[in-house]
């Protein structure tokens, strides 16, 4: 473990993930020893299992959702003086072996998105979801003025400058995908992409399952992008 690793924190937002969280924490700790699990008021033993696996645990008193959990992690990271942050999902779909590649991306950028669609082995996604991802990705790319190959990826590395953006009041906490990336880019953060592999979802749970949820998500994302588009672009030094 070198000095750089010590100042890096892995944030895992988790809700009802007692079955998967121990393996995820153990996997991440091979690359980043400091792991913070943000237990978003789970009814199961997610927090206890994560703690037993060696993670630090912060438990929300009420459920704040995915964005809220990630932002709590960023607040913790900034207060504890961490310089880099990697955040990934608690369901075990993200491969911790990709962490070094994401961190390497921070040498030239402030936010490195773990992209599922780069390289030959592109991630297979249901058609409608893929369509939405690509559509919002293209819009976000246009508005942000940089390449965004996977705007809904929950596997990202963030530098100290990026962390400051995440902890600023302009960072949205309800919709947390393409609009957030556009705002970050317009606030002066450099964004890059790194190829990551995505494991199959074994739990069968999805944040965007059903019919109403995806439709609401699309509507919220469109409003979020509209708001982000009105944000004045900060000139890069």
């Amino acid at each position: 473990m070198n000095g750089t690793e010590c100042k890096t924190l892995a944030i895992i937002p988790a809700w009802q993930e007692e079955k998967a969280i121990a393996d995820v924490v153990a996997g991440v700790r091979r690359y980043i020893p400091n792991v913070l699990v943000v237990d978003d008021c789970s009814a199961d033993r997610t927090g206890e299992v994560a703690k037993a696996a060696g993670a630090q645990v912060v438990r929300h008193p009420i459920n704040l959702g995915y964005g809220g959990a990630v932002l709590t992690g960023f607040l913790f990271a900034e207060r504890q003086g961490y310089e880099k942050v990697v955040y990934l999902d608690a369901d075990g779909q993200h491969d911790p072996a990709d962490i070094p590649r994401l961190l390497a991306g921070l040498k030239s950028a402030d936010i490195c998105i773990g992209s599922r669609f780069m390289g030959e082995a592109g991630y297979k996604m249901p058609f409608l979801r893929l369509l939405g991802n690509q559509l919002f990705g293209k819009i976000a790319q246009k508005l942000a003025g940089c390449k965004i190959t996977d705007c809904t990826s929950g596997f990202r590395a963030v530098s100290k400058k990026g962390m400051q953006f995440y902890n600023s009041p302009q960072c949205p906490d309800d919709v947390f995908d393409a609009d957030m990336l556009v705002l970050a880019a317009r606030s002066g953060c450099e964004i890059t992409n790194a190829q990551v592999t995505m494991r199959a979802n074994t739990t069968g749970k999805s944040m965007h399952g059903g019919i109403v949820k995806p439709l609401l998500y699309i509507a919220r994302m469109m409003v979020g992008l509209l708001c982000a588009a009105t944000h004045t672009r900060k000139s890069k030094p």
Partner: protein
Amino acid sequence: MTLTHAILAMCLALFFLIFALRITISGHLRIHYALVWLGIGVLAFTSPFLYDLASLLHEKLGFPTASTQLLMGAIFLLYLICLILTKSVSHSQRERIRMAREIALLEKELKDLKASGAVDEPDKRCGLDPAHCRSDIRNT
């Protein structure tokens, strides 16, 4: 508007006004929001006179009837009020999220401090019997 209709409208408005006043006095409605509903109550109470005014104005303003004019006015007024209240709810929600985050981080900090032995367990009596704690403070 006939006299019967006017009296009925005023009685309904009075009922609404008294209800708004009651929940304000009992403290269920904050004064900030109470002003909005008391204002609407007063406006509703004067609705028969508003109707007469609308009867005089609707042709000049291009509305087919006075009722349409009043309905449009009421819709836009309620739209405005809903927008203001939603803004207020959004602000409260943001504050609630911020506080929940702070509580979570403080709770972790306290647990870490307890684990390191830097702080003692709080006096259990204080948590169980607030009256006892107050008497302790008085005695000191």
